[in-house]
């Protein structure tokens, strides 16, 4: 056992305790399982834990740094699992013991690859107990070890880790390493590093200075304002850019700490900068400023640069003072048209409903962009009073119409729905259509009575929109009324829309049998096209009673009804219709019906179900037998390919000899064979041999060969050993 980095007396004590513990502890394999959490752990004292972790690590160390990745992967993975487990909450003694054991194995005679891996574990679980050994590696001759040690200390929460990094800064031998250590200190965001970073911020090296000012910004102390500002005019453009970014970041940090005066000082200074820096300054002013900063924002919002205007909108939204809203609203009235959309956008996003009048006025503006922004704004700050105006605009065209429709959907307020319901009887059909669209988009169930009425409106557009809306908002209680509409209408389009509405409304009834009751009731007395449409509806709903009704229709005297019923069965939502479909496939006089039925049968059998694979195989084999044309037989073979059962293979094998089906049959045989080979090697072997004989498809041949090999292997394994 090798122990590194600790004094001789400690080694002696540890060895003694290990020897003592070893006498009572299970073997290392069992201990490893324990430490990985694969078996219950015994109760141990801290000293016993130290010994156990030391023991297990020693067993892992020999290959921990092996150049052969195959050999070091195992111990490295085991150590990681142990470290992860040891770091769980409530197991501090285990974590500390694990960390100590890892740290003790970081000595110079351990391979760098192993030390790098050990350091990675300490990066994840190490605390004060590991700092001395890790710190010792900050000056290691191996660059990877040194860098790994730096990262391990960067993540170590102990004060000792910070102290070690500070100390290391004093002895860095290159600018690159100095930068690395500064960055580790900076990422810790520890205020005790402030003075060191302030000193480094005055460095003549661009890289060192940049690392330091970035760190100062992260700590966010006011004392850094001057040094960071000074760095903005020093060195290369890249160094200046880092300093400028740090300056802005520092302002944000100061603002977060409540020092808005200091933050605003920075943002205002940056206002004279170009491009994104000015945008950041503007947004910063929005975060920390007041109404007195609005003239600055108003000036910037007039800028032709859309990015700057976008930043101004953000800033105006962020400004917290209460008098800001009124000032923006006042400006929006008098500003140049080019500025108004941004001002209205900001005002709307501030969400103050007292500004509604501003939007109402701007909605009549001569400039379309202003109007559109105002209409959008009404959706955010408007209320019921805005509904008539929005409806009027929604009945127009173009972008204002789009904006008004969005706003009608979005506008909040207790009386908005009431206002829309009140507008359902409006004179203009276009306006009525918009009212219905809005009620539908807002899902106003209370609109149902009105929609049932408007579904019979003289205007076709109103009727159509009403039926669509009923599908969205009407409760299941409205099904009889909507079914009556379907029966009554003579318009094919309206009938189809009513049928869609019935399906949607019925979907809101949880009980499958109750869903179809009102439709079945209507079906009893319906005739002509309505009867056919209702049959289609019950088919889409499914359920036992629906199926009975469709079965009856299959025997109807009217040929059109029979045809509709068979088509409905073929589209049935589940396998309940399977027996009926198979009967029709076998016995229908019409070839069309036979084809529809067999296709429908295969489809419903292939739907997800809880039935045993044997049963599915049997049902699909029946389809194969009943199908009269190759096309339908191929569909059945497609289904059989998914059935993981010997019965499926038995049904497929005869088709291998059928030239018209050979391609699909070989595919199916291979797919089934792969799935069932372990339990049916004999049958699969024979089938694969047959596939290999007849298939010319290279991919199928490869898969068949693999499956055949597997079958032969299974047969070989099954033979009793002599």
């Amino acid at each position, binding site marked *: 056992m090798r122990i590194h980095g600790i004094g001789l007396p400690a080694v002696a004590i540890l060895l003694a305790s290990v020897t003592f513990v070893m006498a009572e502890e299970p073997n290392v394999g069992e201990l490893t399982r324990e430490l990985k*959490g694969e078996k219950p752990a015994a109760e141990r004292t801290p000293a016993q834990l130290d010994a156990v972790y030391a023991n297990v690590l020693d067993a892992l160390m020999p290959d921990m740094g092996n150049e*052969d990745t195959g050999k*070091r992967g195992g111990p490295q993975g085991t150590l990681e699992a142990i470290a*992860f487990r040891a*770091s*769980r*909450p409530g197991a501090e003694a285990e*974590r500390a013991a694990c960390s100590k054991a890892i740290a003790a194995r970081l000595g110079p005679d351990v391979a760098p690859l192993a030390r*790098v891996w050990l350091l*990675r574990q300490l*990066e*994840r679980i190490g605390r004060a107990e590991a700092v001395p050994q890790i710190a010792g590696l900050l000056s290691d001759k191996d660059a990877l070890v040194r*860098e*790994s040690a*730096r990262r391990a200390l*960067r*993540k170590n*929460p102990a004060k000792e880790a910070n102290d070690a990094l500070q100390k290391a800064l004093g002895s860095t031998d290159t600018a690159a*390493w100095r930068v*690395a250590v500064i*960055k580790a200190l*900076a990422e810790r965001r520890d205020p005790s590093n402030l003075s060191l970073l302030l000193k480094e911020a005055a460095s003549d090296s661009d890289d060192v200075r940049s*690392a330091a000012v970035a760190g100062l910004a992260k700590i966010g102390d006011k004392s850094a304002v001057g040094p960071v500002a000074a760095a903005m005019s020093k060195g290369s453009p*890249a160094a200046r850019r880092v300093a400028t*970014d740090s300056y802005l970041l520092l302002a944000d940090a100061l603002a977060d700490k409540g020092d808005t005066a200091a933050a605003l000082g920075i943002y205002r200074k940056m206002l004279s900068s*170009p*491009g*994104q820096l000015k*945008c*950041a300054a*503007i*947004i*910063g002013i929005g975060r920390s400023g007041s109404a007195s900063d609005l003239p600055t924002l108003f000036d910037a919002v007039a800028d*032709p*640069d*859309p*990015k700057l*205007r*976008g930043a101004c909108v*953000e800033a105006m939204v962020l400004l917290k003072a209460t008098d800001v809203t009124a000032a923006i609203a006042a400006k929006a009235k008098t500003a140049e048209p*080019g500025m108004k959309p941004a001002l209205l956008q900001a005002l709307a996003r501030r969400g103050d409903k007292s500004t509604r009048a501003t939007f109402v006025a701007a909605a009549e503006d001569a400039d379309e*962009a202003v109007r559109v922004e105002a209409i959008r704004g009404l959706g955010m700050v408007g209320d019921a009073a805005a509904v008539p105006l929005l409806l009027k605009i929604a009945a127009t065209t173009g972008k204002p119409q789009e904006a008004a429709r969005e706003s009608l*959907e979005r506008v909040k307020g207790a009386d908005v729905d009431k206002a829309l319901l009140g507008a359902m009887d409006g004179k203009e059909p276009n306006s009525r259509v918009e009212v219905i669209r809005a009620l*539908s*988009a807002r*899902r106003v169930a209370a609109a149902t009575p009105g929609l049932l009425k408007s579904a019979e409106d003289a205007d076709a557009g109103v009727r159509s929109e009403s039926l*669509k809306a009923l*599908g*969205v908002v009407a409760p299941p209680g409205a099904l009889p009324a909507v079914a009556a509409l379907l029966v009554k209408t003579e318009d094919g389009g309206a009938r189809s829309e009513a049928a*869609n509405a019935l*399906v*949607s409304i019925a*979907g*809101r009834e*949880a009980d*499958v049998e109750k869903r179809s009751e009102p439709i079945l009731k209507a079906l009893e007395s319906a005739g002509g096209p309505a009867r056919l449409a209702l049959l289609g509806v019950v088919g889409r709903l*499914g359920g036992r009673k629906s199926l009975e009704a469709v079965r009856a229709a299959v025997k109807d005297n009217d040929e059109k009804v029979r045809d509709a019923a068979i088509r409905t069965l073929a589209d049935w*939502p*589940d396998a309940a219709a399977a027996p009926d479909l198979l009967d029709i496939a076998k016995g229908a006089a019409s070839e069309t019906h036979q084809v529809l039925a067999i296709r429908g049968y295969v489809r419903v059998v292939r739907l*997800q179900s809880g039935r045993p694979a044997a049963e599915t195989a049997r049902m699909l084999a029946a389809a194969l037998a009943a199908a009269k044309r190759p096309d339908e037989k191929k569909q059945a073979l497609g289904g059989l390919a998914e059935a993981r059962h010997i019965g499926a293979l038995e049904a497929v094998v005869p088709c291998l000899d059928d030239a018209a089906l050979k391609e699909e049959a070989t595919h199916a045989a291979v797919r089934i064979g792969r799935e069932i080979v372990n339990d049916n090697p004999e049958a699969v072997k024979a089938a694969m041999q047959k596939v290999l004989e007849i298939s010319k498809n290279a991919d199928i041949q490869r898969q068949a060969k693999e499956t055949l090999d597997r079958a032969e292997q299974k047969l070989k394994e099954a033979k009793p050993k002599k």
Partner: protein
Amino acid sequence: MVMEKQHVTRRLFLKGMIAAGAAPYIISASALGAEGRPAPSNRIVMGFVGVGGQGSGDMGGFMGHPEVQAVAVCDVDYRQRTGAKQRAEQRYAQEKASGTFKGCDDYGDFRELCGRPDIDAVFCATPDHWHALVTCEAMKNGKDVYCEKPESLTIREGRIMTETARRYGRVFSGGSQRVWEDYNWYHRMMWSGTAGELQEIWVDIGGPSGEMLRPAQPVPEGMDWDMWIGQAPWRPYNKDYHPFNWRGCRDFSGGGMTDWGAHHVGGALFASQLYNKELPVEVIPPDGKEYKQLTYKYANGVQMHLGGAWDGPLGFKGTLGEVPDRKGPRKAPPPINIPNYKGRGGIFGDFLHCVKTRERPFRDIEIAHRTVATCHLANIAFWLGRAFKFDPVKEQIVGDEAANRWIDRPKRAPWSL
């Protein structure tokens, strides 16, 4: 020809700016015209960082938008960046011949590309461990950003990316087109209230990344391996890492968890309207008993499980039932308006529109961050094999100091955010 006209317009605009005494530094940004406003140029000048694999395809997608002008590519692999440069120059061959396009420059260091003042927006499709560093550098240089998913390597990175975007007022779109496009049916069903009040979510997803040890191999010619490694702990080159197979390695990626999670978790959070809410308050890995799958608990009582979806990658249960309904086929979703992409042309078009209008894109970085952070939390729970509580406001793991260390990872010097 459109491109030629755009160039002329842009040149005239530049002339006007200079005459007005404006700083040329902001030429390209100011040249962007929002809809309805006089626009001297409608071209968005883009630079592309990470142009192999996904990046190559995406670059082609962006160049398919007439308003995009690709002028620079960057990749640490010489073969990939020269290939991308050639593709850009082929795309603009006519303009190059006429002298209106000066060619596409190629770089091995993203900082050079990000520092170019003529670039408006930077696209990033590097391996995951580079996303935060590249995109923050771009934003600090005034660029808007489109970044492939998963947007971050750690939760802290995602937060810094969001803060940087907000600080500089930049548009930042994440890169999952699937969230809106592939899971649209779920969104329509869920936003229309089909499931009632949400109780549980199931999301099928890939597994976490882990250690991935590979022996050293010679670094391919033209490959800057140290730059490729970047912030990650150094390891020798192996072809299993680059090109492409780095995703299983924890130092470079969160694995299938963040790769597919960026799509599927993103879809689940959007469908359930948790996408703009706080992160979960508790994460519980599977224990084989009460919790068969990794489970998140949200402050509102909703639980989300990784795994267990049926009939597609997502599943939802509410007071009115399940979506999809296990008992029947999928239904047509009700007609419903859901805020989604702006502009034209999918998620790229959404980003380009927002660059012009300064709106927030569909996959704004805050939304992307919350999605990927959700996946990072699962990875931490899987790696450590234990449950923990999470403070979604501070974005810190509570009561488990060692687990909390995974919120941020130390970066290899000299890299830092």
